[in-house]
């Protein structure tokens, strides 16, 4: 990791997005002016209906898509052509579709790809790879081709590829979908144990509640709500307006801690 980790209130926010708009090449406009700020060390959930633009937003956070209008800043650094490399070191992005993420012939090579690009070699590289795979419980598959794994296994490897890079900011696009319940909890434990900024897209409201103090609701390409997860989930009217609802059998637990 380059650059010393800054802590304290005076460090710039991890993510600042302002007036971000974007249209896909075929003309579909997906974002219509998104504003948000995420402070260092926060864990934030990004909620919203299908097609709201969550994935599109997330792809801007490490410069994979470039803003049609507006700006994105990562740890104070504006996302521009010349800062891209630095930004991609800082932001680790787990894609919604694991098939987009995995491309090397074996799981080992795939997980090693990121750290190797950061300049790691030899034992240090191996340690990172094994460590990341152990965390997601996929060490056994280290020599298998990723496209021969089950969907949930691929998702776990996809998470490992990003963990291995030890980014300062973790952006995850529906990381818990297709995971079995135990892996889902284990992933939550991993995310809680890391001292990094987390932005997580999810449709699983209880999961968001468990993991993130704060939530954003993105709907129709704009931020429709921003606040404590607990209070957003208590607002039935707000949820219903954005196709969100608490699942069958779920009761919002009393505020803990």
């Amino acid at each position, binding site marked *: 990791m380059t650059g010393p980790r800054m802590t304290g209130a005076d460090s710039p926010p991890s993510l600042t997005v302002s*007036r971000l*708009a*974007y*249209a896909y*090449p*075929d*003309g579909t*406009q997906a974002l*219509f*002016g998104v504003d948000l700020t995420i402070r260092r060390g926060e864990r934030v959930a990004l909620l919203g209906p299908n097609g709201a633009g969550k994935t599109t937003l997330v792809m801007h956070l490490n410069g994979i898509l*470039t*803003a*049609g*209008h507006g*700006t994105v800043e990562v740890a104070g650094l504006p996302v521009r052509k010349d800062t891209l490399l630095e930004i991609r070191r800082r932001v680790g992005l787990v894609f919604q579709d694991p098939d987009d993420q995995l491309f090397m012939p074996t799981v080992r090579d795939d997980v090693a790809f990121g750290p190797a690009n950061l300049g790691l070699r030899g034992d240090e590289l191996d340690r990172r790879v094994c460590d990341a795979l152990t965390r997601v419980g996929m060490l056994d598959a280290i020599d298998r081709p990723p496209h021969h794994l089950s969907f949930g296994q691929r998702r776990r490897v996809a998470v490992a590829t990003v963990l291995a890079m030890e980014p300062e900011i973790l952006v995850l696009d529906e990381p818990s979908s297709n995971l079995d319940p135990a892996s889902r909890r284990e992933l939550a434990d991993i995310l809680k144990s890391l001292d990094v900024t987390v932005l997580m897209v999810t449709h699983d409201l209880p999961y968001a509640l468990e993991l993130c103090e704060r939530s954003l609701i993105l709907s*129709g*390409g*704009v*931020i*429709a*709500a921003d606040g404590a997860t607990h209070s957003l989930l208590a607002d039935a009217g707000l949820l219903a307006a954005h196709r969100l609802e608490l699942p069958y059998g779920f009761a919002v637990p009393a505020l803990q801690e």
Partner: protein
Amino acid sequence: MHVPDGFFNLPVSVGAGAVAVTGVGVCLRGARRELDDRTAPMAGLVAAFIFAVQMLNFPVAAGTSGHLLGGALAAILVGPYTAVLCVSVVLLVQGFFFADGGLTALGINITLMAIVTTIVGWAVFRLITRSVPGGRAAIVAASFVAALVSVPASALAFTLLFWIGGTAPIDIASVAAAMGGVHVLIGIGEGLITALTVSSVLAVRPDLVYGARGLARRLVLRTAEGAEVPVTEVPATEAPEPTATPSAGRLRPLFIGGGLVAILLAGVVSFYASSSPDGLEKVAADKGLNAHEQDHGLSDAPLADYGVKGIDDERLSVGLAGVAGVGITVLAGGAVFYTVRRRQRHKAAV
């Protein structure tokens, strides 16, 4: 048309090699302008696509083997300089990885299939699109003609080289006749596939067609309540040109043209669509992407990973391959017959 080792004499091989190296060198410089971070994968895809297209490979009586070339398609999609590089890469990969085309004949193969087809195809394409304004329909039509012309042009160049330094003692006229005849046919198929591909790319990703870019629309900003906000500053990236969205009327020629193409394609392209992809897949799985086994792989296709018989495409593709095969055979036979007759007449005259 991949030329093997030993087909041309040394001077011609070396000469063509020099032409190829110069050409590729020029294109490497030119491509820097066409190619950015994003289009590098596009170039790779075009190369892969051309590789697949070139797998439609059948023996031609008085040439080595004939297949679709793809140079014009590449030029239209990624620009002429990058196109030469794409096709050259295909030929290099075929030569070194797949043993297809001789290593000492690489110069000849690059000259014929990368440089000649691209230059001719691009020239024709520019000529038409410059002189006939008319948006998408014109681009599609121009792609058809450009691809159609590029193939016989390449065959002509082959004949020329053969005349200068071919090692086989065959009457140059019969080479020209056979190569020309077959490649006009191949050219039609090439034109159809090129037009279909270009029109389908234009329809959904106009930004991917070189020279047909700039269709970006203006962005809209909204508040959380859905009210529109005026866009204050000009977007950081290049200002989008206010282009009119194509009206239904403008699109009609495209649809009609597309329909005609689809009907015509029933023969040629479905052969490509059905046999080539699945054949390709089978070949890839069973034989290691060995291009030329494709024609032989059609008859029994126990499909790769899933162990399903290719029930759908198989019969169709075999049927079509049969039809195409018969056509080619008749043609090739005709060429041989013509040659033999000529020779006999010649003998009689002597």
